[in-house]
């Protein structure tokens, strides 16, 4: 292959693919059989990190950035005047294999602009995956984008070769979608999702009876929403995310702070700041829902439609529910321990194990890595010293903010600079 030509294409098509945030390479069950190449079992690996701090785990590229659609938020939309390129199938295969052999990547994340129609595009994506699996004996990770509107037959075939499939919903609400992507229908997004979910369920039930049922999308499916392009509240976003987790059994929902890529009166102007902090708070909420046993209605509801920017969502919830605290670290069950601000799941598990031996005190907790500056207002342990004064939530918040150094603190500090 001609390196110069491939180089040019790679620059264009990697640049266009980078707004897809999914980087997971974990959760697959593909072992290296008969001395092939690659192995994707258990946990994923981040092989590098870009200078924006995002992990590089997969070769993330578009097959082409030619597109028949004109979605306002998208950099490859039809009306945008940019360089266009398209990879040949063999070029993608060669790049993937050679990057993988050098231990640069865990596998391939292949997406595409839509050329001709959905099925034609999906077919090309599937044929890359098929070639990697069948001709190159490649057992690394493959993440394919499901093209909205692709047929059920193609979605079935895609799952046979890919580890993960995803459709990006992009705009959290149906009304937002109408505004920014008038050519696309909401059903076009959900149809392939439903098909993949049903196939995964079918695979699981058939597997019980037939051992050699062909493996189907072992790492499940995911989706992504753009944050801050339209006027959704955090509640809209998280309720929508919860819907996708429940209805389609998503492995992950990703939140992507909108990076302005186009001059459009419907969107934030080019150069406006990427809402990275808001994105971070949404991920924290996502974690609370998936791992900490929170219900979305506890964190976001009509009274609190948006997350606090200056404190994390768990602390914010705790300050609204002071009647549940303090929690005794030596007796409370796992569910309650997980609700104490400053105590993560790793600390919870350590506490549960360690307290079988003796009553834990401040010193023990500190050594185990509990963030006591937040936690100590909400808990008691084996010590005569604890927060005895009845502090009101506002005071606690003030004290915590005063005595800690958040990484985003400078972004929302309202204090004026004297010498600026």
């Amino acid at each position, binding site marked *: 292959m001609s390196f110069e030509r491939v180089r040019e294409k*790679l620059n264009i098509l990697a640049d266009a693919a980078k707004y897809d945030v999914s980087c997971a390479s974990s959760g697959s069950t593909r072992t290296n059989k008969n001395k092939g190449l690659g192995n994707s079992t258990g946990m994923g690996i981040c092989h590098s*990190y870009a200078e924006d*701090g995002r992990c590089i785990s997969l070769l*993330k590229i578009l097959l082409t950035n030619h597109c028949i659609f004109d979605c306002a938020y998208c950099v490859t939309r039809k009306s945008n005047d940019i360089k266009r390129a398209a990879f040949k199938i063999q070029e993608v295969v060669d790049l993937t294999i050679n990057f993988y052999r050098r*231990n640069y990547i865990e596998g391939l994340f292949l997406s595409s602009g839509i050329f001709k129609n959905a099925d034609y595009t999906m077919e090309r994506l599937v044929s890359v995956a098929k070639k990697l699996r069948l001709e190159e004996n490649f057992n690394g990770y493959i993440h394919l984008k499901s093209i909205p509107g692709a047929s059920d037959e193609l979605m079935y075939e895609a799952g046979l070769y890919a580890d993960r499939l995803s459709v990006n919903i992009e705009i959290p609400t149906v009304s937002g979608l109408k505004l920014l992507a008038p050519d696309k229908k909401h059903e076009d997004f959900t149809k392939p999702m439903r098909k993949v979910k049903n196939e995964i369920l079918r695979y699981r039930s058939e597997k019980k009876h037939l051992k050699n049922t062909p493996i189907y999308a072992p790492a499940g499916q995911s989706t992504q929403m753009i944050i801050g392009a339209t006027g959704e509240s955090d509640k809209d976003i998280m309720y929508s995310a919860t819907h996708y987790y429940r209805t389609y059994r998503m492995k992950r929902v990703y939140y992507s702070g909108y990076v302005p890529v186009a001059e459009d009166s419907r969107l934030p102007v080019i150069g406006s700041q990427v809402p990275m902090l808001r994105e971070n708070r949404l991920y924290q909420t996502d974690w609370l829902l998936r791992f900490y046993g929170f219900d979305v209605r506890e964190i976001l509801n009509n009274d609190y439609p948006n997350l606090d920017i200056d404190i994390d969502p768990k602390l914010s919830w705790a300050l609204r529910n002071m009647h549940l605290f303090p929690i005794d670290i030596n007796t409370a069950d796992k569910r309650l321990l997980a609700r104490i601000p400053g105590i993560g799941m790793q600390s919870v598990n350590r506490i549960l194990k360690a307290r079988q031996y003796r009553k834990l005190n401040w010193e023990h907790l500190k050594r185990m890595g509990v963030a006591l500056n937040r936690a100590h207002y909400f808990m008691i342990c084996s010590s005569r010293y604890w927060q005895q004064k009845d502090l009101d939530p506002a005071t606690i918040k003030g004290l915590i903010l005063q005595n800690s150094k958040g990484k985003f603190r400078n972004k929302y500090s309202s204090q004026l600079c004297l010498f600026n």
Partner: protein
Amino acid sequence: MFIQLGMETAKILIYDGSFNGFLTTVFKAFEEKLPISDIQSNGLCQNGLFSETETVFTQMDKAKRVWNGIQAKSNTAIKNVYFAYLSGQKGIELILYRYIKKLFGQAGIAVNDFSDTLILKISQLADNVRREKHRMEAFVRFQQTQDGIYFANIEPDFDVLPLISKHFRSRYADQEWIIYDVKRKYGLHYNLESVEIISLDLKEVYSNSMLKKDVFSSTEYAYQHLWNDYFKSTNIKSRINPKLHTQHVPKRYWKYLSEKKQAV
């Protein structure tokens, strides 16, 4: 430190510096109920003023018995012992000896007693080594030589080669590869059949140099170029975050990462 018993003076045991040697030493200390003042590797021993030294010769059967004994107590414990040992921290042998004594000393299994300083310490050391293992699985960068071998130099904080061997063997089953630790002067060589420990007389360290070397194939440099390009194009400039970047990819690893060529 524990209290000496009787009139016997505490001994310093010297072993050959291998993990099995260390386990043999533990066996001896237990069996003979020796009061121990230190366990030292023969490369780095230092005589105490008032203690006798005794050299222990590695015996696989004894080492195996200690390994099995700890494993029977707890799977986590044996992993922690092995990982913490590979941290190579000064004085790790004596700390581990005390840890093992603790494991056998109590009725219950104490590996989860994180309120105990010693147990927490071993568990944290093991975690550090585990992190380094995972990093090496991520940061090894193979360069293809003229004769088709995928070659990588590494310089990890801890001696993690024994820990990453299986990962690379099952991943790159169809290519010949060498991973060589320049700090500890030994490496792994996979010859398409099995992994062997090798030591090389390297004339130079093959880091991510801008200069092309004759030993590597020309397509090798083409792919490094493509990878470097990809590394740049996948970055979103409006989200630049150098602090987070170096937190994930600490500077000491840059030397061998081909994508950081221009930064080193």
